């Protein structure tokens, strides 16, 4: 059974088992490998994509659930917030191993799109669900603040 959806602005048809998690469809079938596999059970956030604008864990989202949806991956995020976050991430040396950072950048971007000036509590609440085993958390917080400042300037 084929599933139709839009990925990063392009219409695609996925001819895969509808139970397949979107994560593996993106990675193995659309070769969009920026979205990472960390746990497979919605615990780490490494697989975060935007599903109709909402950060979603693709490892537990079956392809059947994204029929006609708009999916944006790290490869496809655009706009001022995304650019500010990615620039801050690079300027501040946020990444260590970097494996979790696609997911971190996705969540940070969505946060700033909705709340351009988040409080410390709002940053912690938004970013709190994404594990970084390298514990880059101090710089993730700094990165969100720096991106927020850049957006205001």
């Amino acid at each position, binding site marked *: 059974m084929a599933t139709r959806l839009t990925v990063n602005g392009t219409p695609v048809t996925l001819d*895969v*088992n509808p139970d*397949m*998690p979107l994560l*593996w*469809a993106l*990675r*193995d*079938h659309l*070769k969009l*490998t*920026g*979205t*990472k*596999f*960390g*746990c*497979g*059970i919605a*615990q*780490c956030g*490494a697989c975060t994509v935007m599903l109709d604008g909402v950060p979603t864990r693709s490892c537990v989202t079956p392809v059947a659930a994204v029929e006609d949806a708009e999916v944006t*991956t*790290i*490869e496809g995020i655009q706009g001022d917030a995304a650019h500010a*976050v*990615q*620039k801050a*991430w*690079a*300027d501040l*040396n*946020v*990444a*260590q*191993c*970097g*494996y*979790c*950072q*696609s997911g971190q*950048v996705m969540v940070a971007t969505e946060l700033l799109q909705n709340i351009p000036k988040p409080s410390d509590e709002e940053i*912690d609440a938004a*970013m*709190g*669900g*994404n*594990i*970084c*085993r*390298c*514990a*880059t*958390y*101090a*710089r*993730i*917080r700094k990165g969100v603040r720096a991106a927020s400042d850049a957006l205001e300037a």
Partner: protein
Amino acid sequence: MLVEAAARLWSVPAGEITVTAGVVRHAASGMSSGFGAIAERAAGLEMPQNVTLKDPADFTLIGAEGITRLDAVEKARGLATFTIDVMRDEMQVVAVLHPPKFGAKVASFDPVEALDVSGVLAVREIPSGIAVYAVDTYSALRGREALVAAWDESAAETRSSEEIEAEFIAAARAPATVSEETGDVEAALSESAQTFEAEYVFPYLAHAAMEPLDGVVEWTPERAEIWSAIQIPTVAGPVFSAALGVAEDAVSVHTMYAGGSFGRRATASGQFEAELAAVAAAGGPGAYKLQWTREDDMTQGYYRPLTVHRLRAGLDTDGNITGWDNTIVNQSIAFGTIFEQTVMNDGVDRMAVEGSVDLPYGLPRRRVSWAQMINPVPVLWWRAVGHTHTAYATETFLDELLAAAGRDAVQGRLELITPDRARDRAVLERVADMAAWSGPGNGDRRLGVALHKSFGSYVAQIAEVENRDGAPHVTRVWCAVDCGVAVTPDIIRAQIEGGIGFGLSAALYEQLTLEPGGTVRERNYDSYRVLGLEDMPQIIVDIRPSTDIPTGVGEIGTPPIAPAVANAWRSFTGETPRRLPMIRA
């Protein structure tokens, strides 16, 4: 020698030649050259006897701020290629069903249901389990779920970690192999006005790096290419050569970015590499990705060893420490590996006792011993290795002794530090300044201190801790570091921050337990809890200026944080947590 070679080539005085940003230049004649073009000539010259190194005042890159990592941009854009991202034409994805207990083996299996799963291509037995070959990851995982297998557990470890721990505790109460000894400790203890004793238990720990172990092989009988984040490629090469029958010089290993490792991607046994090679060999020439899931990664061993420390000490009537006895019990990381010869020292695994010997403190009558335990649970170095437990046992027990003697934790340590340990002293004094130390305090936030040298570097930390609903919550950490010449200060700070987060994670939450019967209880991040952003303290790092040779930075932030937190926590509860983690599910 490059300058000398250029001087001869251009027939100009060597003294007029400058070197900047990789270019050798003679301004007056307008001649210039890259290093490569003159390297061969330079190599042919006689080695000079005395070389004057560049004056540190003239450094342009060493110690410079504002340098960003070369991989910073691609990692912020999701463009960095990790092993999991490697795709080859006609590549099969492989999942392996592993035995449920350490030391167990495949007895029999029925592949029929797995082969029925669409996308599954083959099911094959390999030494470490049963491999399911499929067209993509999802099919491989579904095929593995459908496998029916029976296991031979005759050589398996079937004890729970609680039972293993009981064995270790018993060993800690008996004499062990002496690693360091001065004076008569037993006499010192029996002469003491007051004696103290404590037993500490540290659990097995998983590395839990974000990218589960994975690797790709593409091979023909003539050549093999491997993509994996292998930390010891020199161990891996021969493994593939032997398994595939490909000449060693026709095996190329692409060392990929590691999605975290913390030691896990460096096994002396080549555990993962051997499985990857077996998968490729059993499948025949072609391309294969072996993808472990989080559950494989967490249950397949190579843990920080479960460790017991038993400490005893005495104080005289003036509050001076009379004797110090530390017995350490765990499995050896080096035992049975290629590292055994270099690491074992008079029957003691140096990685088991490091950080409990060679202390900065003058303890004239002291003894450190080690008892080796042997069982089938594979153990491995885990960021900071032995220091992960030795720093905790030493620095919390010492803190209690100082408190019992009525001494301040910083001042008392300074008085104990021997004159030859000026660098330990300097970082401790510095961190006390940074945190405006005047004791642990008695308000909502309490302070605790720890000092620990590892990997050639000196680190002192003060942790500020709150009591949140009966559990420690760390709000701030001050950290003074002497790691010799600081080559890239911002990367050093980043490593210290991450190292503190990693150590705090283990102090608060991490433990890997074996259930009765020997299966691993924690299989994913839902049960193996690691530090989240909400638990990350503010961290203030100060790197001491130094002209000493550069030493370790990747692991050194980890050892002192747990004891610093425990020492602060004792000020709330009156007790040192004797068992980690401090917060248990």
